[in-house]
């Protein structure tokens, strides 16, 4: 092969390298109908273009397939998640990790305004991961803690330098209080005050 032919073949290979960006993610597979697959490919492309992590979107597809949801329902769920992750991404800024964005999207889904998540991120600085605080915020709000009370509790915990084990313990005690009949807001406000002095619980799931 002379140099001209080699250059042409190199360009052809480069063009081939360009093509897969628009191709279907192979993990979408053939479990879904063609229109749903096409819609998902478009959503994934859109997410990539916005700098949104696509792995959670792919796992939403897998979850839907595993549960037996039909294509349109899976597409709707992925579309919602894409929108919420985009909202979270904008609120947290480019310093946020993929995990923080995903956790923040859960909080947005639960009803927490993204601007509040952005404030917590600014307050915490770059070194403190907010993945668990946002996950717990989403949890307690979904259990009935009013958004304002939940945000205030998490903000005070993060501001006080609470560790993840403390915040895990906070979630467990608040959810336990609510299950026993405590008003959700009162449970969150009261338990937030006690967290820095609290001892972490050892309930499952336990990271060993």
């Amino acid at each position: 092969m002379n140099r001209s032919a080699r250059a042409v073949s190199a360009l052809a290979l480069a063009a081939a390298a360009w093509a897969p960006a628009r191709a279907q993610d192979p993990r979408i597979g053939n479990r879904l109908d063609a229109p749903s697959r096409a819609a998902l490919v478009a959503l994934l492309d859109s997410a990539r273009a916005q700098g949104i992590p696509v792995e959670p979107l792919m796992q939403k597809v897998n979850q839907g397939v595993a549960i037996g949801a039909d294509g349109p329902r899976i597409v709707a769920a992925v579309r919602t998640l894409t929108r919420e992750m985009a909202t979270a991404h904008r609120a947290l800024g480019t310093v946020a990790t993929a995990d923080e964005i995903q956790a923040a999207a859960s909080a947005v889904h639960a009803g927490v305004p993204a601007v509040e998540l952005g404030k917590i991120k600014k307050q915490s600085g770059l070194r403190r991961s907010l993945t668990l605080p946002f996950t717990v915020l989403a949890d307690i709000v979904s259990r009935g803690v009013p958004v304002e009370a939940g945000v205030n509790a998490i903000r005070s915990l993060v501001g006080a330098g609470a560790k993840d084990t403390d915040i895990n313990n906070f979630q467990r005690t608040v959810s336990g209080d609510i299950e026993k009949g405590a008003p959700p807001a009162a449970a969150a406000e009261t338990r937030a005050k006690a967290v820095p002095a609290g001892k972490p619980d050892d309930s499952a799931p336990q990271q060993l």
Partner: protein
Amino acid sequence: MPEWGERHTTLEMIVQELQRPVRLDETFERRVMVRVRRLHAERRSRGWIAIASRITHRPGWAAALAASVVAVVTLGLLRGRPAEGERRGPAPLEPVQFVLVAPDAHSVAVVGDFNDWGLNDGALIATNHEGVWSVTAPVPAGVHRYAFLVNGKQWVADPSAPRASDDDFGMPSSALVVEDSTR
């Protein structure tokens, strides 16, 4: 990030193709030497300026080719780059124990985004100890969604873990944050 990996593999193929030595025919050396001797003779008679004028060069083509390669590769890299915040490499695996108290269950498995929700037979099978079902498995550091699959059909959230608020499919699931112990 398979897209990035695929693109990386393709770029490596391009580099390998460009680096592969050109196979020369057996007469190459003789033809080169003939040409060198002729150039040498011409240099003696006409000097360096004449030799330089005989060297064939097409700067326009070369520049266009170089620009094309650079543009295609650069655009490919940009399109294939990981999203902001996306992990640059595989997350470290951390052992996690999942426990569900289910005295009446016949089987309990754990499915989640760390095993593609049990698709492709990847569910974690829990063992029973007097109604306390448990399984320990390595899970990548990061945030995850999971659920227990009881008796092969009933989806149950982990009562001791945060809820996943986005149960879009009507089945409860839980959230798990696995810390990276290497940090």
